[in-house]
């Protein structure tokens, strides 16, 4: 399986995702934002970080960079595109996912482990996944998902919510919502479910010595689904 990770100026989780993808069997290539062509890929990942210093709005500049034309074409042709954290922000700014990520409700940068609950397994990202509730790490200032009333209706009608913030038992409520996200949304799909954005970082949970292994379960399952 071939994957590509795009590096924007200010990306800082690109190498972490590279390590995670390679650990679970992807042949990964790093792609510079100024390139025009994507290498042959089964999965494209937009990593976390602070592309363009979060100027104007998080992800807004990166969403207009040269490589994004190829990413848009790839996604529109059904290619799998995953955005993590800043990558999620870039995907909404590029119009590949609905809505927007606002400043966290209590105006603080949040850096901690949270639990997320998988909402929809009928897609390449979570099909046959062994667990429903994952402990992932979040580190963001703008993760407060928001969209219009019409958009949230469409998102629910099409079962586009990928992940909810929950507690360790899977309860989705205000207490388990770290940033004020609409309906506790931690990750969403596009209508076709080939594009996914999420605020948590599964790539930070692939080593039992450092963190935990819930990310390992996610990446292992993902490559099996793409095979």
């Amino acid at each position, binding site marked *: 399986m071939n994957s590509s990770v795009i590096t924007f100026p200010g990306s800082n989780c690109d190498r972490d995702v590279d390590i995670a993808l390679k650990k679970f069997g992807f042949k990964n290539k790093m792609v510079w934002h100024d390139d025009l062509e994507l290498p042959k890929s089964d999965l494209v990942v937009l990593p976390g970080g602070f592309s363009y210093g979060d100027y*104007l709005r998080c992800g807004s500049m990166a969403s207009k960079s040269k490589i994004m034309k190829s990413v848009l074409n790839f996604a529109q042709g059904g290619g799998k595109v995953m955005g993590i954290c800043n990558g999620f922000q870039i995907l909404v700014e590029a119009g590949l996912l609905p809505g927007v990520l606002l*400043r966290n409700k209590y105006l603080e940068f949040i850096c901690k482990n949270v639990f997320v609950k998988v909402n929809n397994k009928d897609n390449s990202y979570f099909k046959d996944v062994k667990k429903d509730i994952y402990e992932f790490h979040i580190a963001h200032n703008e993760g407060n998902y*928001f969209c*219009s009333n019409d958009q949230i209706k469409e998102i629910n009608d099409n079962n586009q919510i990928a992940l909810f913030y929950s507690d360790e038992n899977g309860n989705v409520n205000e207490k388990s919502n770290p940033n004020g996200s609409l309906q506790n949304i931690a990750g969403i799909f596009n209508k076709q479910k080939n594009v996914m954005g999420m605020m948590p970082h599964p790539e930070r949970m692939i080593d039992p010595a450092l963190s935990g292994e819930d990310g390992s379960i996610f990446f292992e399952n993902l490559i099996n689904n793409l095979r």
Partner: protein
Amino acid sequence: MKVSVIITLKKDVLDPQGKVIQQTLNGMGFGDINEVRQGKYFEIDTNENDKKKAQEKVEEMCKKLLANLVIENYKIIDSQ
């Protein structure tokens, strides 16, 4: 021609920064405030001398980059 445009959050979008600014102003003794909403201001100096054309260009910039229309409105307030 210099075109000035302001970008504001839509009415029903929460503005936590505005809220904190309001609380601070209240704390400083400015008691009579109903609400504070924070926005952005841009001055765009273009070589286009036709006012209508310059405004149309800036409007396109707003739609494509300067504003996110899911949460923000834009308004051209001056061209000279």
